[in-house]
């Protein structure tokens, strides 16, 4: 089985986000960037499946500017075999990413595509489902457990009511939750070895995909701030305030 894993470069989850004063977006200059966290889980799961002898090749792909390659390099360092970087500048919407991935899937013919369930920058939670639709493949979203069977996957999904299990035939798209596994760290020797692995660069214009945004970002602003609260001295005071001041109990 061949697995394609999609990894996105985003502002690191620990960074305190700052909104630009002109309302055009958030500050990204000199800000630490990392792989979107659940995409690390997607890579990890692919590597585990390969280690279990159930996959033959793992290809990591990213869509983005030149530096987005770092995420592919990181995937190579934890066990992906080869990388693809589709180069495109500027904002790119999930619909366009899914169309680009569709082209690559048609060429690479993987049996599975693993992705994160949500990018923590745009919080869209769309790309995997869109790719599944475009390919007319089954989708298993928000996966917290994957069992590889002969020609299918059994996937446990995290849903609002608890857990749901479905079985999807291969080929399929899986979007991963953070609880799927514990991503490993790359060892130094593996980081060195990854430098020799190949990353193919594709120019988005060669794929014939229209990436023009359909959604205009009119402005980005800070959310309203909560007014400062107080510290209470003890539990009695807390209960008294909740009862008589906030009137919520």
């Amino acid at each position, binding site marked *: 089985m061949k697995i394609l894993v999609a990894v996105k470069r985003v502002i690191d989850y620990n960074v305190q986000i700052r909104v630009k004063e002109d309302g055009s977006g958030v500050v990204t200059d000199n800000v630490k960037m990392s792989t979107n966290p659940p995409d690390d889980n997607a890579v990890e799961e692919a590597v585990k499946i390969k280690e279990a002898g159930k996959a033959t090749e793992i290809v990591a792909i990213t869509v983005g500017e030149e530096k987005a390659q770092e995420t592919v390099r990181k995937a190579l360092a934890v066990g992906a075999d080869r990388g693809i970087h589709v180069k495109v500048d500027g904002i790119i*919407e999930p619909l366009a990413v899914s169309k680009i991935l569709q082209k690559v899937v048609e060429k690479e013919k993987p049996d599975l595509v693993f992705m994160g369930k949500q990018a923590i920058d745009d919080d869209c939670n769309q790309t995997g489902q869109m790719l599944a639709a475009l390919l007319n493949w089954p*989708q298993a979203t928000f996966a917290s457990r994957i069992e590889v069977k002969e020609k299918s996957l059994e996937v446990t999904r995290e849903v609002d009511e608890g857990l749901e299990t479905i*079985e999807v035939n291969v080929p399929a798209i899986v979007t991963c939750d953070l609880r799927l596994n514990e991503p490993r760290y790359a060892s130094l020797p593996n980081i060195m070895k990854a430098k020799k692995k190949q990353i193919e660069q594709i120019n988005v214009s060669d794929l014939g995909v229209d990436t023009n945004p359909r959604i205009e970002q009119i402005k980005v602003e800070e959310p309203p701030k909560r007014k400062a609260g107080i510290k209470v001295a003890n539990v009695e005071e807390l209960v008294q305030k909740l009862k008589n001041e906030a009137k*919520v109990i």
Partner: protein
Amino acid sequence: MSVLLIAEHNNKEVKPFTYNAITAASQIDQDLHVLVIGLNADEVAKSISQVPNVKKVIQVDNEIYANYIAENFTTAIIKQADKYSHIVCSANTFGKNLMPRVAALLDTSQVSDIIKVISSDTFLRPIYAGNAFATVKSNDPKKCVTIRPTSFDPAPTTGGSAEIVKADAADKTETTQFVKREEIKSDRPELGTARVVVSGGRGMQSGENFKLIQQVADKLNAAIGASRAAVDAGYITNDHQVGQTGKVVVPDLYIAVGISGAIQHLAGMKESKVIVAINKDGEAPIFSVADYGLEADLFEALPQFLSELNKLNTIQK
């Protein structure tokens, strides 16, 4: 222009957030139709027809919709999509799973998780775990939108009498099989809609210790929430997780116990009306959003809190 809302239900009852989504959908356009896809879901269709804002209910009833399989629901929606300018549904795991699949087939760039309708094509939505709000305008002829239910009041459930029309099922997918659903049933109010939520974090140290949270929750008729760390550690099941990658809650009172207040957690609760934090670390970021902060060891504070509550003559339910 007409709006098609996809109802969420379990074939017997309408899921409460459908009513919040109805409010948002009717702000987009008054001509609101609701699609009920299910099996023997007549009661659901009937309940929705009684919502005053709803102009028409379209019911697609077939055994292939007994369980919620996104592939099957998508084709049923696409069959109806022609007549509508907007297709909308709640931004919970139901809608998040479904809507992008619909949007891609309609070649539409979806607008996810809106918290305000500015006009029929312009919406407000949080990005970066709610650390920024973006005003976005969709230029697609047909718009697919998911709605953050807690940002809209539920629509009234009685007084209307919309017509209910039946529509045909679409083809069944052969590639996805439903296996099972493990739902955690409880007598408590639902986390998403509860008036009071008491949440525990890694500071609880064990699942056993969540008893302390339960006792307080029982007293306040509250739902129980948790941080991702508490769920990851196995103290409590995933359906309790509040945050960027869990549920968004906006109760009148949110009590965070042994939770540090990472931005990913705040993303799910910082719109709550009154926030209480109980944490032994006075520097914990949760205090920056708390109206009332109590710097204390939770293992002393929670039993005391319970006994103080027991002293009260009345407690709001």
